[in-house]
């Protein structure tokens, strides 16, 4: 692989509704934040390039499109995902319980070398705007709880704020570095687990030469 080529990486988002999954992506992809964002509808497949050293990673980010609300996510969602963000809201204990569920689900459904980050989002909500100190009682999930869960599941742990951009780029940079590290370690056959023969691109223009007038006489 040449140094300039892009490494495509499928990254899936998991977490309870309204923990800020889309907001994290919006911050990462366009350095933007929308207060009172509506639940995700529409463009739920975003890409962002990220340069790490001499390599460029192209994140293909899959949002849940709200499918997690009343249904299990389709297997298709996890299929070949190389990275995952499991997100909870540091001010909502229930969202952390859900995060624990998603971590387990990931283990069952995903490929074995997936890079997982456990994210406690909405860090801004527990800080006093004046003093920058944590407001007592605002935090419902402790740093230790987050760290422990991440450790149990072999994930990395971050607390973030999509609103203030705190730690958001760091999450993606960490994942990018980890992936490059894994790629370097991996045996060539691990890299390409499936055979590439016969793969086709349906969107390529069809050939029109259905008359083969080759002479076989």
């Amino acid at each position, binding site marked *: 692989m040449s140094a300039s080529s892009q490494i495509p990486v499928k990254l899936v988002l998991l977490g309870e509704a309204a923990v800020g999954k889309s907001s994290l992506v919006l911050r990462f992809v366009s350095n933007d934040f929308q207060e009172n964002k509506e639940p995700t509808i529409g463009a739920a497949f975003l890409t962002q390039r990220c340069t790490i050293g001499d390599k460029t990673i192209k994140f293909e980010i899959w949002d849940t499109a709200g499918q997690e609300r009343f249904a299990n996510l389709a297997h298709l969602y996890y299929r070949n995902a190389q990275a995952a963000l499991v997100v909870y809201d540091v001010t909502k204990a229930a969202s952390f319980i859900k995060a624990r569920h998603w971590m387990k689900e990931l283990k069952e459904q995903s490929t074995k070398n997936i890079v997982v980050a456990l994210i406690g989002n909405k860090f801004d909500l527990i800080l006093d705007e004046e003093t920058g100190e944590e407001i007592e009682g605002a935090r419902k999930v402790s740093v230790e709880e987050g760290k422990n869960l991440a450790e149990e599941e072999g994930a990395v742990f971050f607390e973030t704020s999509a609103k203030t951009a705190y730690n958001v780029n760091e999450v993606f940079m960490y994942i990018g570095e980890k992936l490059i590290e894994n790629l370097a370690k991996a045996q060539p056959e691990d890299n390409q687990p499936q055979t590439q023969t016969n793969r086709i691109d349906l969107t390529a223009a*069809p050939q029109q030469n259905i008359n083969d007038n080759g002479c076989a006489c």
Partner: protein
Amino acid sequence: MDEEYDIIVLGTGLTECILSGIFSIEGKKVLHIDRQDYYGGESASLNLTQLYKKFKPKKEYEDQFGKDRDWCVDLIPKFLMSNGELTNILVHTDVTRYMEFKQISGSFVYRSGKIAKVPATQMEAISSPLMGFFEKRRMKSFLEFIANYNDNEPSTHHGINLDLNTMDEIYYKYGLERGTKDFIGHAMALHPNDDYLNQPARDTYNRIMLYVSSVARYGKSPYIYPLYGLGELPQGFARLSAIYGGTFMLDTPIDEILKDENNKFIGVKTKEGIAKAPIVIADPTYFPEKVKATGQKVIRAMCILDHPIPNTNDADSAQIIIPQNQVNRKNDIYIAVLSSAHNVCSKGYYLAIISTIIETDKPHLELESAFKIIGQTKDVLMGIAELYEPLNDGTNDKFFISKSYDPSSHFESTTDDVKDIYKRVTGHDLVLKQRKTADEEAELAGLS
């Protein structure tokens, strides 16, 4: 969750999911419910634990054929024609973004006790072992006629009118033998029986053209197949629907169907509460009182093998068609062959799914010729399915019911049903619009 929707869809089979996706793109508010906790309904792909539970409830799967999660066995075996309508819908809706496709390596037909590649081009006709020396020449002329035929150029018609002349008359004109007719009609035009012989040739011509142009698109066979099985298709369209605002509720049985005083549909009651909509689309299992049996029953045998199919040049995947006449039947027998190359089974294993319409009261014996072709099996799971169709078109009571998946080898009848239901619901034909690409969508959302 007492809420109002434009359309409620029951069952996450392929037909229902395509419609759910299309209506969501059009801006309709769709609620999509399935009583089961997985996507796909009757057209799901199951792992071996699920499969044994369904077809051999007394015998639990015990990892004898490798890891359970490596297996995705299609309940309805079909392939996509690479130039067919489902491919067209996948490309237009950009659902191809969510999955990967691979070619099926070979298309074979049974003639006089042997199988051989279906000759789709004039070159292949000349080298095909299916025909004798003179018959090859006749087949070549026939294919030449098909390839060159142009409605606007009478000189290419050779005196044939596709809308008046029957297919049998065309065969007669080219002097083709009965066995050759069998593989043209059944392995290329993919007719399930011989009714087409006495009908105008236009439909058969279109079907042969679909076959030939599909072969030309990628080369090895006219068929393509999604990695991880056909169950990926409903999941892909479900994701499309969700992205455009569709709400999905799985593992949710319907407690009650709500109707008005004229028996028109008004909503459903589930554990989540009441959801209302003026229209319901559903698969036949949700409304047994609103469908009738077509009289046809399909037998499907899912065979686990540890070797490729003999005489296929060790193909990792294949479609094998046994034309009815060749084995004294009224309906063709289809064998869909897949392997780990398409990520549907453990390495070293092959999956052959045999299907046909039952003609006797000993259906398993009807598959004997197919079992001979595939060779030794490690295990066989068999199921028989009755085919259903809606009693009426739903325009009065607003219950729009899909048909059961037929035993045909491809999805053309499924997409016909999708278009038919779309028209019954909306009153106009389905016109596919090209969906924006991922980059264009990101740009629209102000994200690029």
